[in-house]
């Protein structure tokens, strides 16, 4: 251990939860908002969720159909690349496993896309196997627009920019296409436990 910041002590560390906080992160109790542009306002009558790309019969749900899908309520820790982590967040939504049930695909990668043009890339391994959801409730309430409502992607084991707000679908792909932040200096996978924040981390 080399450098020490003269005069810095830091907060008392909460040992009970510290094993749940990845390196370089600190915990918050509120819910900060981060996005690169204005918050899109979505008309639910025109909202759809699609699975397209490397798939024989693309799938599509309207808002009503989506709400009728089997849902799950999960409690997860989330980690933002801007350093905050929020423990025990509760979400209701549809598991990607449910959405991809019966889908045959040669794809190993995906691009999750959103209203407003935002995209993020994820391997199929990272979004299947009970690891990812399309969430429409947070803490028992409809998801607010600034937090990605009406629905956002939820991939809590990766940095939170992968949990795309205002999500509208998944494009299945044979190759990896870096998404919005992944093209703007951020890591292609973004595992907080390996501190994969930026290119080359």
């Amino acid at each position, binding site marked *: 251990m080399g*450098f020490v910041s003269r005069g810095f002590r*830091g907060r008392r560390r909460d040992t009970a939860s510290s094993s749940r906080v990845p390196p370089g992160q600190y915990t*918050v109790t509120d819910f900060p908002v981060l996005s690169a542009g*204005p*918050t899109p306002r979505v008309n639910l009558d025109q909202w759809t969720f699609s699975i397209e790309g490397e798939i024989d019969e693309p799938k599509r749900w309207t808002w009503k159909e989506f709400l009728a899908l089997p849902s799950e309520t999960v409690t997860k820790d989330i980690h933002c690349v801007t350093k905050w982590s929020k423990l025990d967040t509760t979400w209701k939504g549809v598991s990607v496993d449910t959405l991809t049930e019966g889908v045959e695909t040669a794809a190993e990668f995906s691009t999750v896309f959103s209203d*407003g043009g935002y995209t993020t890339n994820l391997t199929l391994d990272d979004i299947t196997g009970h690891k990812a959801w399309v969430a429409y409730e947070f803490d028992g309430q409809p998801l607010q627009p600034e937090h990605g409502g009406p629905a956002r992607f939820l991939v809590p084991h990766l940095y939170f920019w992968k949990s795309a707000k205002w999500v509208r679908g998944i494009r299945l792909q044979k190759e990896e296409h870096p998404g919005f932040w992944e093209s703007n200096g951020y890591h292609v996978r973004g595992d907080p436990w390996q501190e994969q924040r930026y290119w080359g*981390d």
Partner: protein
Amino acid sequence: MIKWQLGTVVELRPETPRVASLYLDVPDWPGHRAGQHVDVRLTADDGYQTERSYSIASAPEDRRLALTVERLEDGEVSPYLVGELRVGDKLELRGPIGGFFVWQATDDQAERPLLLVAGGSGIVPLMSMLRHRAAASRKPPACLLDSSRTLEDVIYVQELARLAAAGDGLSVHHTLTREKPSGWTGYTRRIDAAMVEDVAWPKDAMPAVFVCGPTSFVEAAAQLLVAMDYDPRWIKTERFGATGG
């Protein structure tokens, strides 16, 4: 990876009662674009570390790297940076980071007028853009709309006045949301459509818009501009979570 390096504090400049600029000599600084940020890492003598992100205030052309930091009383890092840190101390950082909320005078987009909308310490990355513009040979028209709580909370007030007085196409407009000082000729209300119409270009001029501030400010300002029919694709936002910093 973007490597951690040690900068030396060469100057501390109070900007407001709660905000100070840290000028750093960073020997291996790779250069940056206006609008980018750095990660700062503090290490206690028992090995405990914590990191935060701070926007860069200096222009790419400046010799020293400047960060401008608002002290949050319940924060863990900002009271150290604004309060404990002294000239001669070393500070560990890495960067530059972020490739989206950036403006370069040499880009194609730089032909568009530049509309900068700042709330509180959200002015920091926008100041980097204005300092960069001042140093550039090609200067598009620019407008800063800067919202602060009170007059003493206005960051860079004198430098902004100097930049605006240069007569090179920059206009600077302040609004105060919690105070009406006697003799004040600027606005004293939250940013609204009438104010934007007063100071900025109409949407047909297709300005490149950068909005930075606390979340509620950015949400309101971006929503206002979209409602006024500015192209959302040209509105870039950066939010300062006033959280734990």
